[in-house]
């Protein structure tokens, strides 16, 4: 199937709803979080995620300040390509946690990009890599 199909069906779900909010520690707000889904009909190995990047109100977020919470573990975005033994089940909602002093208040726009390699889709020697993009306004 063409990439436009996957984009039409799944890209809009990359940024999911439910669980978005601030990360509060004692009296401090140290960051914010929001939910993500894998934008494809099936689950996948985290090592197939070639890029997973975010922007807040148009400003790119530093990957070193971002963790993906999934499978009861926490993963640094930069480590994803190495995690070939970690599978993201398609119904599981991941949580992105961003360290961001003071957190967020009110409405903010998040942009997300995921480049996902289809490890089985190598019909002529190269794996298909599909780029999914999604934008969403969350109320924090």
């Amino acid at each position, binding site marked *: 199937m*063409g990439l*436009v199909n996957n984009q039409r*069906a799944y890209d809009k779900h990359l940024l999911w709803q439910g669980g978005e909010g601030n990360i509060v520690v004692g009296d401090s707000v140290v960051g914010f979080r929001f939910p993500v889904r894998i934008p494809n009909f*099936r689950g996948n190995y985290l090592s*197939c995620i070639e890029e997973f990047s975010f922007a807040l109100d148009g400003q790119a977020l530093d990957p070193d300040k971002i963790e993906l919470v999934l499978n009861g573990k926490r993963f640094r975005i930069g480590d994803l390509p190495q995690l*070939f033994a970690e*599978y993201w089940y398609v119904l599981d909602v991941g949580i992105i946690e961003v360290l961001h002093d003071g957190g967020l208040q009110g409405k903010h726009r998040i942009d997300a990009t995921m480049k996902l390699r289809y*490890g089985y889709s190598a019909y002529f020697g190269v*794996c298909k890599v599909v780029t999914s993009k999604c934008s969403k306004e969350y109320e924090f």
Partner: protein
Amino acid sequence: MRAGEVKLGVSLFSYSSVFYLGEKSLTDLLKKSKEAGAEGIEIVASQMIPGYPYPSREWLRSFRDECEQLGLEPFCYSAHLDSGLRSDRWLTEEEKVLCTVNDLRCAKDMGASVVRTQQTISPKLMYEIAPWAERYGIKVGVEIHPPHTLSTDVWQEFIRVFEDIDSPYVGIVMDLGIYQEYPYDGWINVYASHGVSQATIAFLLSALKEGQPLAEVLAVLEKQNASEYAREMAQEMFALYRPYRPDQLADVMKYITHFHTKFYHMKNGEEETIPYRQILQIIKETGFSGYLISEYEGHYVYDEQTVSCFDQVREHIAMERRLLNA
């Protein structure tokens, strides 16, 4: 199964969108499959089975029991062979064998008769896979899928290997998508929604029908300064669709573990982009016994509210039954 007996089933992949959105549970999907007239099911493990690639024996057995209680055969454990799953290298041949043995183990626990694997496994590895399939008493079928056809080099090689191995335990999962002649409305409309004009669409469809070479078509688009979407549409269209040639279908029938009877849209009880009548005629004439597994893929572009995947599968199974009994 009696010689020449054809059974009808469904791949739960047909219900991808409602599953993804959490609108239906796996149990719901099994019940819907039964209601649609399916005798058996195929399940895409990487999609629907929690704990994949190492689902628990408990889960698999309970799924088997649930199928059987509903009067459904848990026919096929549909595996992905993700040879590119690592970011640093391809899986080795040894790793592919381990993956497949693991899939066989899961299929056994699920009570399945077939493991669907993929061409990324490589033809020569079938020599190592066949004895494993035989030990487990479960067939391993390599799915042929667009953009490949039976004429693609790797498939000529697979067929030679299957002839050579001559075992009922390895073979082909025949996805009828390889015989698709035309794109379907929903797919065309996605490109239209990205600004590809009706004139361009008409030009592409006619060029496809007339067998015009892709290079010429792209040259025309170039001259028209067509958009990136128009060029992608042409490339995808010419890679995936082509005028029907029955190819070697009758010749390879003996290697086919089962069919994926692919479809994108049932209109008034008919599927219009794949020559179902001709293909089911060959199936009947060759005396094939086994499953036709309905594989609905329109869920990528049709909204469930407009085109229900459950209705689509029901209509498709009814069409198959009608054509088989004709």
